[in-house]
């Protein structure tokens, strides 16, 4: 894993790809860092220049893709920080601390299933690409879910022919299966030990996915979110309760995660 660095990068593109969802491409002179970054790792972006007191904290975003010498993020406009980011013009310099945390680890299963819900799809593209490079002969299933068609992101990148076995679900039926992405997962037949599921999405979805995996005895990795101040293990702000009995202990999303084995949490 590369040592994280705090670098200045330049916005080359910041484009609305779906309503309220933006693709941000950055150029940096420090490209080695990106080619070594693990899928599932994230960056802390300072939204305005460093002297800006409000918003004060950096914002965590997952690495979506590394391509043509650029690093890409896919983000949804939620509050003040992401709104300001969406207004930033190409040419603007941004400070970015990256790559941070522990990403997905590719298991030795025969079949891999990537399950993404909503913005949780963002980190899965880079992961799918890296996995294909490293294990070209393995089956990679990709299950993508969202509330509605407009919120499905990066689908065209996954559906390039011949790469992955992609299935889609939307809550309102506007695209693919009418229902939850977990219905699709439940429908898969694979014997225990042969399959690993990698999941990123809303909390209830990840919990449901991990329940299915437990039932079917599949390995399961989940990518969690938490409010963060530093993103680098210094403030202990990003705690998540650890599974266990007795005194409640906590793990830290930025330094122990963001990717965890499901059984560490649930």
């Amino acid at each position: 894993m590369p040592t994280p660095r705090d670098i200045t990068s330049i916005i080359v593109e910041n484009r609305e790809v779906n309503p309220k969802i933006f693709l941000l491409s950055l150029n940096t002179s420090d490209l080695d860092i990106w080619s070594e970054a693990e899928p599932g790792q994230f960056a802390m972006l300072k939204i305005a220049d460093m002297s800006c007191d409000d918003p004060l904290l950096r914002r965590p975003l997952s690495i979506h893709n590394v391509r043509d010498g650029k690093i890409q993020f896919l983000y949804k406009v939620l509050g003040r920080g992401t709104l300001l980011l969406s207004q930033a013009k190409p040419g603007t310099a941004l400070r970015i601390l990256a790559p941070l945390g522990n990403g997905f680890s590719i298991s030795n299963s025969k079949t891999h299933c990537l399950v993404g819900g909503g913005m949780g799809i963002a980190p899965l593209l880079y992961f799918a690409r890296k996995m294909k490079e490293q294990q070209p002969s393995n089956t990679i299933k990709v299950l993508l879910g969202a509330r509605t068609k407009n919120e499905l992101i990066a689908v065209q990148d996954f559906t390039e022919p011949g790469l992955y076995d992609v299935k889609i679900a939307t809550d309102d039926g506007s695209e693919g299966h009418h229902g939850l992405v977990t219905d699709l997962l439940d429908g898969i037949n694979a014997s225990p030990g042969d399959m690993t599921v990698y999941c990123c999405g809303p909390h209830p979805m990840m919990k449901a996915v991990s329940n299915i995996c437990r039932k079917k005895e599949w390995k399961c990795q989940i990518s969690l979110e938490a409010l963060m101040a530093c993103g680098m293990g210094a403030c202990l702000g990003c705690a998540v309760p650890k599974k266990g009995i007795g005194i409640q202990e906590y793990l830290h999303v930025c330094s122990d995660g963001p990717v965890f084995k499901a059984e560490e949490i649930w």
Partner: protein
Amino acid sequence: MTGPDLKIKIGGWTLKNPIMTASGTFGYGEEFTPYLNLEDLGAVVVKGISLEPRSGNPPPRIVETPCGMLNAIGLENVGLEKFISTKMQIFRKYNTDFVVNILGDSVEEYSTLAARLNDTDIAAIEVNISCPNVKKGGVAFGVDPQMAYEVTQAVRRRTDKPLIIKLSPNVTDITVMAKAAEDGGADAVSLINTLLGMAIDPATRKPKLANIVGGLSGPAIKPVALRMVWQASKRVRIPVIGIGGIRTTEDVIEFMLAGASAVQIGTANLIDPGVSGNIVKGLLGYLKQHKISSVRELIGGLKTP
């Protein structure tokens, strides 16, 4: 020509410069080595340590507020013994002064911590007295001058390390607390710890922190911190270490003019992990530019009408 003198004295301890990091915002120091050279800093103050491990508060533990943040980490730490056997080994790798911040829920716990740390090669002890005194119904040591005096005195008896008492700002008169620490035998006071605050989500009608209340830090608290440093430094003879919202060289100069002999940088480290090292360079540059031969000339240099 030799450059400006950045050295500062606290009791018998000489710091290479007045820039320290604030407890709880700099991990154990090592996390920051990709972004700065620890040896450039005056001192590194590590995360608060208690006798027994503490797992801390449930999440959410932090929330951003205008120009600041609230935290309710709950003093999560590995406990004294594990700290000594693992984390303290890290310190030996760097030619830097490490200060250990301690916390307890009784006077006895503070003294045990001080006695044990006295046998180690740390540079100084900082006592966080913003913690509740369990035997006195959970009132924080730091809001009662008598309790602050007692805990300072108890720790003083068990250590000959430089002793810093870290004051809570959640009091009516900070000068009374600073005096209590001085009378108890402190070598310095550091202030301010975080200001108690809260944040509410109007949509859910719930508090934004699981702990409901938390400590406010960051640029938002700087004016309050400056005022308290100014007041405290006029009242006590021991050095005052200024803390609160510092993120630039200019901020450091303001605190020193207000009466601080040194400063600690807290929340700013979380946003810009290299900031403390840059401030040391900035301070040196300022002194050179203004042809000031010693940083000590700034201390208390406020011009009042």
